[in-house]
């Protein structure tokens, strides 16, 4: 970079690095996506903080013990955990270049994710139907905000998954598609990590 160059005075000076950096397309995607996940983590942190502050403001309404069915939550947790391992299997098939296997396991992952959502929506429907919607008390507002945001993330994860399946079907296992599968994998496992916080702090610690 510092080496002098023989250029005529009328020519604009050009500097070159000793070695031009060569980055393949998308090389920064994993780190960039990780940064996104970390900022997403802060969204959840604020929602957790809100819940921690408002979680015992029942406004004369029911508390956690009266509302939560731990069996349902255990089932829900199992769904999400199973979807994590099936996504792992999808990644392993992708590493081996097995497109059929990848698509099969991605579909199974989507099925578990959908099962999780159905159970969560059943719980929400049940609560709202019984008159314990988000407007009932500060506790329920913060509960629906936190758990609902997580559920929304899972929903968009499933949408992303199906878009990706269509992409893989159309273009095959290209490098871009591989990168996208890897990125979605981070997103998916991240949601499972957030769920650990949710079932521990909201459901388990609420019903102790």
């Amino acid at each position, binding site marked *: 970079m510092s080496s002098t160059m023989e250029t005529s005075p009328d020519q604009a000076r050009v500097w070159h690095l000793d070695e031009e950096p060569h980055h*393949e397309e998308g*090389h*920064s995607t*994993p*780190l960039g996506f*990780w*940064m996104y996940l*970390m*900022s997403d*983590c*802060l969204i959840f*942190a*604020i929602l*957790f*903080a*809100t819940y*921690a*502050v408002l979680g015992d*403001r029942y*406004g*004369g309404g029911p508390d956690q013990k009266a509302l939560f069915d*731990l069996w349902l939550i*255990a089932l829900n*947790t*199992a769904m999400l*955990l199973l979807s*994590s*391992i099936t996504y*792992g*299997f999808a*990644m*392993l098939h992708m*590493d081996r270049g097995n497109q059929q296997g990848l698509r099969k396991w991605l579909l199974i992952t989507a099925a578990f994710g959908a099962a999780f959502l159905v159970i969560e929506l059943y719980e929400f429907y049940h609560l709202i139907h019984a008159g314990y919607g988000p407007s009932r008390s500060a506790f329920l507002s913060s509960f629906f905000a936190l758990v609902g945001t997580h559920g929304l993330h899972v929903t968009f994860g499933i949408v992303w998954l199906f878009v990706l399946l269509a992409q893989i079907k159309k273009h095959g296992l290209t490098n871009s598609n*591989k*990168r996208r599968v*890897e*990125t979605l*994998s*981070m997103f998916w*496992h*991240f949601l*499972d*990590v957030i769920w*650990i*916080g949710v*079932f*521990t*702090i909201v459901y*388990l*610690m609420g*019903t*102790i």
Partner: protein
Amino acid sequence: MAHAEQASTADGHIPHGDFRSYMTGFVLSVILTAIPFIIVMSGGFESRALTALVVLLFAVVQIVVHMIYFLHMNLNAEGGWTVISLVFTLIVLIICLAGTIWVMHNMDSNMMPDMIEMIEGKGDAGQGESDVPGQDMSPGK
């Protein structure tokens, strides 16, 4: 633990696990999920605080397990930048969480009993007493 990192590719892609590391992570997660559920569903320990602490501890361990076996975190991925951003996030997160809970708890304990009654909706208990409750918010009351 070391085998979780071995399949990392040289071109900066996310390192992948192998079958064994995924299964290890899964089995550990199942155990770490089942135990706190069993503890809470069977009534917990005598001390509620102890139960909460144990449950929280299991969650922290499980999060670490997920990070290692599913998210394939390690100190060298992306030249250490993932870990740096994680640590930064954790610092901000702890400030946010601890700060919020601290400040809000402080405000809560400094609230006047009248105001709490108003918020909790119990204020109408003393309706017949004197003047209309809930209207006098002057601190001199």
